[in-house]
């Protein structure tokens, strides 16, 4: 625990809690406002004929909706040289996979998408026991256009600087080197299908992905919080790789 906790009475707690509640209500209000503003973004027609390798053969972006009118893709960091998926993306998939039936019932198809070959993705999915569709993007343009694939030239300043130990560790655990690991970027992209035309409606990355890491929201409600200031700030492991405790 970071700071010494203050011990109080129930009345003191109640008074402090009531004050905090006002701020939490404001957060809820702001969050609803953001959701409304997201829906005001213009839709952008997807003109390119992107292709995907799926368990049911090659498909176009419009086919991935599979009967829904909304499609949400989580761009999972699993590039061609990876031997296993990124541990942080894996923790996100832990949160996303159980949402599939609930979103499906709300006209939304949720899938994972990666650049790695489909066989590797499916083998890893079996290992992680996720019940969620996973598609492999054919070629690089799809990820590139979203900003989730970086060239060596773009990465050079980062690669020539001091590499954070957690990046090295994650690269190692994915069976690739740092350059191979960070050329993939995580993200989420959302699409609408209307009269046979696909529109891109929303894209987010980095901190925008936090809601997809349910454990962070939960840790934000316990006394020690995320507690990530220590020497090993990135503690997230694949769910089957934590040391037994």
């Amino acid at each position, binding site marked *: 625990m970071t700071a010494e906790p203050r011990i109080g009475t129930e009345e003191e*707690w109640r008074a402090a809690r009531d004050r905090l509640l006002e701020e939490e209500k404001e957060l809820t209000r702001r969050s609803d406002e953001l959701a409304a503003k997201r829906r005001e973004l213009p839709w952008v027609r997807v003109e390119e004929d992107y292709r995907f390798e799926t368990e049911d053969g090659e498909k176009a972006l419009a086919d991935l909706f599979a009967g829904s009118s909304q499609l949400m893709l989580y761009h999972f960091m699993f590039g061609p040289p990876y031997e296993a998926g990124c541990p942080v993306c894996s923790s996100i998939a832990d949160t996303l996979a*159980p*949402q599939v039936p609930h979103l499906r019932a709300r006209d939304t198809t949720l899938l994972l998408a990666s650049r790695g070959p489909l066989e590797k993705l499916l083998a890893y999915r079996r290992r992680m026991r996720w019940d969620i569709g996973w598609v492999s993007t054919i070629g690089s343009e799809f990820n590139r256009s979203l900003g989730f694939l970086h060239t060596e030239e773009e990465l050079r300043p980062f690669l020539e600087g001091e590499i954070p130990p957690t990046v090295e560790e994650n690269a190692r655990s994915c069976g690739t080197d740092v350059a191979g690991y960070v050329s993939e970027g995580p993200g989420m992209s959302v699409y609408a299908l209307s009269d046979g035309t696909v529109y891109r409606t929303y894209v987010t990355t980095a901190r925008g992905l936090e809601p997809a890491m*349910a454990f962070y929201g939960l840790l934000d*409600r316990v006394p*020690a*919080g995320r507690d990530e200031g220590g020497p090993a700030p990135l503690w997230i492991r694949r769910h089957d790789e934590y040391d037994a405790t």
Partner: protein
Amino acid sequence: MTAHAVGTREEWRAARDELAKLEAEYGELRRKVTDKRRELPWVPVEKEYRFDTEDGKKTLAELFDGRSQLLAYNIMYGPDYELGACPGCSNLGDELDPTRVHLNHRDVTLICFSRAPIDRLIAYKERMGWTFPYVSTYDSDFAFDFGLALKPEQAGQIPELVQMVENPPSWLEDWSRQVGADLKDGLRENPSFIAFAREDGTVYHTYTVSAPDQFVAPYNAFLLDRTPKPPPEEPRNWRKDEYPQS
């Protein structure tokens, strides 16, 4: 043609960049509130509670299972519910298992509470395929002491609640049928997260958050906030094995 405004990539990018500023502001505000949450005083729990668990009777301290923090989700499943827990709470429950291992390795034990008797919780847990520890607060003051449930006389003194019971919207009537309880009893359960800390043998209550806070909503709501279609006007939920066939 779509009824929605269609734009160019450049237009989208400009609008997205503006929105990103608001998202960042919101993130900053959320971090500040999170810090304040941890400044709440800790309140020692002096009363001795006993809970029915799958492994027999346990005290609050024993529910920590050796860790120093306990986070519990209180699922609306009262003793009067004939057909199972609240579907929305059940959706949230679906999410907890896969994320639980990550919390366990951050010194947090994650469990669920409900007020129905333990044998019914065990049967429902099996039906939903859950693995988290499910603890019954049946026959204990715990749920009432910590605001996780209301006694009939307390519920009768809350005008909003009385109004909802007397003039329920149709989605709430459907909800009452889904759980198999009259609204006057069904709405006495309070969906909440409650947190405790354990230090030097003492258990402290640190935090509670209840509906309608956005945190006490099924997680799919976070994702649906990012999809193009407007949200449904009524908060209807179904258990994962009961979705109407479309």
